[in-house]
């Protein structure tokens, strides 16, 4: 076993240790806490690089090595935990540790004024440990445990400013919504274990993702005539739906923006929400297993449709939002939908490529937004920002790069290449072309709302530059925005660089990423580029059209002082209201699911108080009655009977004692008569 694989478990263990130690530190020991977290991430990053390099050398097929350890033994069965190093793991490890490290460094600046600084780094380290645990897990059990830990870390970090009621509510919402998805994951896990007898993915042929198990799962049929593998895949996908914020469990992600911006960047853009996509990629052999290999399996079809719908749904909502982070949140939901779509139509490489590129530019965008918020003294409404490109040039530049990557501006930006792969795969999907069109619509909308956002935030004039004609402006002094410190802008620059260059590992000309994941050598072939030139052009046209339209609408407004009413809102007020209210999904859930739950809780409470308490009270009454009865029996029957018996005896003896009246002559008479009686008895008795 290669040494790195033996020590692969150190990669999540070190941040976990850092989290443990910093939880014991006091509030004032801020620097040690940050140092521990960052230090552990640095070491984990180097180890991940080593692991990645190891996976580059493989003789045939993808590199895959596992390490495992026995965890629990019941009788003859043993639950094993294992970790695996294969290309999927390698690339994810590098991405998570690298982006995580950059965000940790960013947080030093962002959270500098917060008094719970140490706590923040403790939670961040915990999160990093759990996320890395998901990545290296070879066992669905270990993955599930890390999955839940990630959910816990997300809860702690969303509700970091817990004294804000909205933050506490958002944390609860996130946890509960992802939990609903996790039920599916758990059920799928149980079913998988009972069907195949193992939870290890790869176990030298015995794992549940390997040939033998898959053949067994595909062959069995279950409810509704679908194969067991399909059923399990859909259940596992439920977990991904929850964690990655797909429709219908997307409601928690926008509210999760209550947390500090580094949290949003790390967890809700780059890594945790990507965990759902990663899960689907990890169990892809199970998902794609079907008896008809040339048609996409049912499970993957489900994944595709959910992803496609989510992509457009979230993009629509993002158009009508006014909070800078909320726009980015809906953008994340939409991009996650793209990733799922990619996984469904194109396979692991397509989906994962977009995941990797998205991680970088989304983290960049969030951190840039954080920088803007920080510079505007915690203002988050885009209508109140403006003209920031003059005050924060570095932030503006990096933000622009990130925005262009997200929109998919062609050739130089990674988003273009990764999104194009997805669109190309969708076009070649044999089952339906609808996802393809949805993807195109989504691309249009993405470019549209991102341009809107950037116009409002960075272009035009800031409130401090506006002529203050009204009385109230003189009273409120609007502070001039300032550029963030270099500890915050350096990571932005690094991420921007990667947002550009990462695109080149997945171009059709040199499909290195695809080749890496499948273990084949990559071939540089520019002719492939020529094949897809048509599609590339189409998407480029869409993107530029959207950007142009958006600029036309919003750039002039950005310079005006009245930004309250959006032109689209003026044009289509009804549509705008629906979009701004997120299609009223939250209200729908409140009216149905939550009300049902509340009703059930009230019913259970009534049941508990009336019925169960009633039963207990009745039992206690029965017991009291029994005891009263037995006391009565004891007093009247036993005592009374005894007393009566004694009285009877006394009466009887009183009667008897009348014989003893002291009259000796009577005694004598009695003796005489008794003597006669005795004689009679003897005489006639003995005859």
């Amino acid at each position, binding site marked *: 076993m290669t040494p790195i694989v033996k020590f692969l478990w150190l990669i999540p263990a070190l941040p976990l240790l850092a989290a443990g130690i910093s939880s014991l530190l006091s509030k004032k020991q801020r620097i040690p806490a940050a140092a521990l977290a960052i230090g552990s991430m640095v070491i984990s990053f180097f180890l991940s690089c080593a692991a990645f390099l190891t996976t580059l050398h493989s003789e045939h097929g993808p590199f895959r090595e596992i390490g495992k350890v026995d965890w629990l033994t019941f009788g003859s069965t043993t639950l094993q935990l294992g970790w695996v190093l294969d290309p999927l793991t390698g690339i994810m490890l590098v991405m998570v540790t690298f982006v995580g490290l950059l965000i940790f460094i960013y947080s030093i600046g962002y959270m500098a004024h917060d008094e719970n600084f140490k706590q923040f780094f403790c939670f961040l380290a915990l999160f990093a440990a759990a996320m890395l645990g998901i990545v290296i897990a070879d066992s669905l059990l270990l993955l599930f445990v890390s999955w839940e830990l990630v959910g816990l870390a997300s809860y702690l970090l969303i509700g970091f400013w817990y004294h804000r009621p909205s933050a506490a509510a958002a944390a609860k919402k996130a946890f509960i919504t992802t939990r609903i998805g996790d039920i599916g994951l758990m059920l799928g896990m149980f079913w998988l274990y009972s069907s195949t007898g193992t939870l290890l993915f790869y176990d030298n042929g015995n794992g549940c993702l390997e040939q033998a198990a898959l053949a067994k799962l595909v062959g069995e049929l279950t409810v509704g005539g679908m194969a067991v593998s399909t059923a399990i895949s859909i259940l596992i996908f439920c977990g991904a739906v929850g964690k990655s914020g797909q429709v219908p469990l997307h409601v928690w992600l926008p509210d999760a923006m209550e947390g500090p911006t580094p949290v949003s960047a790390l967890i809700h853009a780059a890594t945790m929400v990507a965990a759902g996509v990663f899960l689907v990629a990890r169990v892809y052999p199970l998902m794609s297993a079907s008896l008809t290999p040339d048609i996409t399996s049912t499970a993957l079809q489900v994944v595709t449709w959910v992803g496609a719908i989510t992509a457009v749904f979230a993009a629509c909502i993002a158009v009508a939002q006014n909070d800078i982070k909320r726009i980015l949140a809906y953008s994340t939901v939409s991009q996650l939908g793209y990733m799922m779509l990619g996984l469904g139509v194109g396979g692991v490489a397509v989906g994962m490529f977009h995941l990797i590129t998205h991680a970088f530019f989304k983290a960049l965008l969030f951190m840039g937004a954080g920088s803007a918020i920080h510079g505007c003294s915690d203002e988050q409404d885009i209508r109140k920002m403006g003209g920031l490109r003059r005050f924060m040039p570095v932030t503006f530049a990096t933000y622009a790069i990130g925005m262009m990557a997200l929109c998919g501006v062609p050739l130089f930006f990674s988003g273009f290449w990764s999104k194009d792969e997805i669109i190309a795969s969708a076009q070649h999907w044999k089952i339906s072309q609808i996802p393809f069109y949805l993807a195109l619509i989504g691309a249009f909308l993405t470019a549209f709302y991102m341009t809107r956002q950037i116009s409002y935030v960075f272009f035009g004039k800031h409130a401090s530059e506006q002529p203050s004609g009204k009385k109230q402006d003189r009273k409120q002094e609007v502070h001039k925005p300032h550029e963030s410190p270099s500890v915050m802008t350096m990571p932005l620059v690094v991420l921007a660089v990667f947002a550009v260059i990462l695109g080149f590992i997945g171009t059709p000309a040199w499909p290195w990423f695809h080749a890496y994941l499948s273990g084949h050598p990559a071939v540089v072939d520019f002719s492939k580029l020529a094949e897809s030139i048509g599609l590339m052009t189409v998407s480029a046209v869409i993107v530029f059209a959207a950007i142009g339209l958006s600029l036309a609408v919003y750039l002039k407004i950005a310079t005006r002082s009245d930004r309250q009413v959006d032109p689209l809102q003026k044009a289509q007020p009804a549509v705008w209201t629906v979009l701004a209210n997120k299609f009223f999904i939250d209200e729908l859930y409140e009216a149905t699911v939550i009300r049902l739950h509340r009703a059930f809780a009230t019913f259970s409470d009534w049941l508990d108080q009336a019925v169960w308490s009633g039963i207990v009270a009745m039992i206690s009454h029965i017991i009291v009655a029994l005891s009263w009865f037995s006391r009565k029996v004891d007093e009247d029957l036993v005592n009374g009977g005894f007393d009566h018996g004694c009285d009877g005896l006394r009466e009887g003896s009183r009667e008897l004692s009348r014989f003893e009246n002291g009259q000796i002559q009577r005694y004598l008479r009695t003796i005489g008569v008794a003597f006669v009686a005795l*004689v009679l008895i003897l005489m006639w008795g003995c005859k």
Partner: protein
Amino acid sequence: MPNNIAFYILAALTLCSAIAAMALRNMVHCALCAAGAFAGIALVFLHLDAEFAGLAQILVYVGAVAILVLFAVLLTRGEEIKANIRRASRSWFSGVCASALVFAGIIVPIAYSPGLKHTPAATASAPVQKLGESFVNEYVLPLEVLGLLLTAALLGAVVIAMQDKKEETKSISQPENHPVQKEAVQ
């Protein structure tokens, strides 16, 4: 034949005096009739060839017991003179019935017993010498015990009947209390 008549006459006399002893009002008469009954029984003993027993009967019963009874009667006469006390208790009839029952209870079994068919010996004698010999040889222990018994009885009777000296002096010194003197006073 003459023996039979003697017995029947004796029996009748004895029975009459016994009935008299039990039925008369005057205590002294009763005592005297009792003595008569005892004498009658003694004569029957003699009739039955048990001379020593008969004479012992006369000596003891008639000579001692009857006199003793008489003494007791005389010593306790105070009460009877005063009030007109009824002779018999209220339930005297049940007493008579009881005794009738007893009589029947004794006679009837004996009448049915086969021992009655046994013919008696022609003569019987109880010479005193033989009696004395049997007393001293076979029945020496009962004889000695009897002596002790008589001693004890003597002592006991004296102790029981003896008055306390104080009480005696008190009652004698107060002439009102003395029954005879009281009678004299009245």
